[in-house]
């Protein structure tokens, strides 16, 4: 199978075209055809939801929830305002494909949001973009939005169809927790982004208390291609239960880091080869396959694995956001975990005690080990603290903080133990492997 056929591209379909972000470029690959079908009454809301269900599309924001099913939870015909909200907060460490969708294919997202809005009876949409995207992705999306309005694709009674859809942009201001969907809604209401208790779920009580669905950028930007090429085509790209393509953001110690949109389920060795292999001729040590929150996998384990939801789950990790962080043999796993734990500590919103206190503990104990003051009981304590956070918080940030600790210590316990016994010296330095 040639994974790199242009034919296989979903959200990256217009990449390679000149000014791929413009309306003309997007139209040249069939963009807005599906939306036109909606506007002319050829595609009903039920059709859309059925097709999205049949495609096997699962949420690309990290949790992998089936998108069609999620859309069917919206009380579509209930009176009152409903909202579709796009999550372009992209801040899971290692993840960077939404930024490229916003920069290079914003119209796919606009079309996807319009279609999703129609399918769920939402006449207003907001795209929540992280604040740090202010200089480049934000203006790109904004000008695409302007083009779409000028072309009569958005607004009230669009083309006399009787269909209304208004789309606005919102720009955040720096907080990982606003990527969590209810934190995002709080932020959109102009408040600190502290996640809400669920239930009620956003489909019943969302933005301003109105029924709302939040989807990830890549999820929504995949919808137009699915409708254009057919749900069967999309489903067949990947294995069962993992329909479609994934944008693997491959970073770290590979020769050619990059965002690669490839059929779901590609064997890891093939993905590694596409990325030019491990850099500097070194050996693979470990991979975090789905963003910093998912469990780390030893190199020999992932070399046997396919990159899809089910395969990675069975192997003890997760596809998450598709962010593949590759580490070579010189990587000190204690320092990696320290950096990860510092992130969750810094980003905990502080409303749940296990997360607020626990993430600080985790980071301080790991730093103690690095400073050469670790004690032999510290490793069990780290796992115990992580276990006490997991499952005991309002949102999944707590779990995201716990999984790396549990998995790093499970697979690399000897590195932590070595450092404790040797006054803070890393095993990779002892092996003479440390990066020069």
């Amino acid at each position, binding site marked *: 199978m040639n994974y790199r056929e242009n034919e296989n591209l979903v959200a990256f379909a217009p990449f390679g075209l000149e000014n791929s972000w413009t309306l003309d470029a997007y139209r040249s690959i069939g963009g807005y055809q599906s939306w036109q079908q909606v506007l002319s009454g050829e595609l009903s809301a039920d059709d859309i939801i059925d097709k999205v269900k049949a495609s096997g599309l699962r949420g690309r924001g990290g949790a992998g929830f089936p998108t069609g099913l999620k859309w069917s939870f919206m009380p579509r015909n209930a009176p009152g305002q409903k909202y579709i909200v796009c999550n372009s907060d992209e801040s899971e460490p290692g993840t960077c494909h939404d930024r490229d969708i916003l920069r290079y294919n914003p119209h796919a997202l606009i079309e996807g949001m319009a279609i999703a809005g129609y399918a769920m009876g939402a006449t207003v949409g907001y795209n929540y973009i992280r604040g740090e995207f202010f200089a480049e992705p934000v203006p790109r999306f904004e000008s695409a939005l302007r083009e779409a309005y000028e072309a009569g694709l958005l607004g009230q009674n669009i083309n006399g169809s009787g269909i209304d859809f208004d789309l606005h942009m919102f720009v955040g201001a*720096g907080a990982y927790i606003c990527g969590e969907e209810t934190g995002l809604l709080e932020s959109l209401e102009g408040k*600190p982004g502290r996640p809400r208790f669920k239930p009620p779920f956003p489909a019943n009580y969302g933005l301003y208390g109105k029924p709302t669905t939040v989807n990830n950028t890549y999820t929504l930007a995949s919808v137009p291609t699915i409708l254009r090429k057919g749900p069967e085509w999309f489903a067949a790209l990947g294995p069962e239960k993992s329909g479609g393509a994934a944008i693997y953001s491959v970073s770290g110690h590979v020769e050619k880091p990059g965002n690669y949109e490839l059929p779901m389920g590609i064997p890891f060795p093939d993905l590694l080869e596409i990325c030019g292999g491990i850099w500097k001729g070194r050996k693979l040590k470990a991979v975090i396959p789905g963003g910093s929150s998912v469990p780390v996998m030893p190199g020999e384990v992932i070399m046997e694995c396919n990159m899809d939801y089910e395969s990675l789950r069975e192997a003890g990790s997760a596809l998450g956001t598709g962010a593949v962080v590759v580490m070579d043999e010189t990587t000190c796993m204690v*320092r990696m975990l320290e950096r990860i734990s510092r992130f969750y500590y810094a980003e905990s919103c502080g409303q749940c005690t296990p997360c607020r206190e626990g993430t600080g503990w985790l980071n301080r104990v790991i730093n103690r080990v690095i400073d050469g003051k670790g004690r032999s009981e510290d490793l069990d304590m780290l796992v115990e603290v992580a276990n006490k956070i997991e499952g005991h918080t309002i949102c999944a940030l707590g779990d995201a903080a716990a999984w790396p600790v549990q998995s790093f210590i499970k697979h690399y316990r000897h590195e932590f133990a070595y450092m404790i016994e040797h006054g803070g010296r890393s095993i990779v330095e002892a092996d003479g492997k440390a990066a020069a």
Partner: protein
Amino acid sequence: MNEKTTRTVALSDHAREVIDHWVAKFPEGRQRSAVIEALRVVQHDNKGYLTADLMDAVADYIDVPRIQVYEVAAFYSIFETEPCGEHHISVCTNISCHLRGSQEIVDHIEKKLGVKTGESTPDGKFFLKREEECLAACVNAPMMMIDHVYYEHLTPEKVDDILDKIE
């Protein structure tokens, strides 16, 4: 508009225009949603940080309680409520950047500017804000952001070039 006359400074016409533009995107009575955008423009116009007076002015202009503006300013990392240098430098040191040498970049900038992370240069030009969390440019690591502009595939030489060109 409420008559709150205590120590408010005037917002610039430009700031008011931007705020009006954002308020219009939200339903009637939901103007609180515009607080983040209002603070962003006001901070920018004030050379990189917010003051209590400015926050009050924003609250009064948008017509929300002042406390609601303070809590937003405190919660989000983009906002600064203490005087600091005008150009904010944030070097990402999260995992992908860490693996591609972000520490060397931080060390280099600290040495070049003669300040530690979290400090501003005495001339008020630069603020080496913090070791930044992931900015979603991981495949182009190491990277940094200066006033929202991303600089990717960094080397110490490239950093020199970039910083030397900033007015």
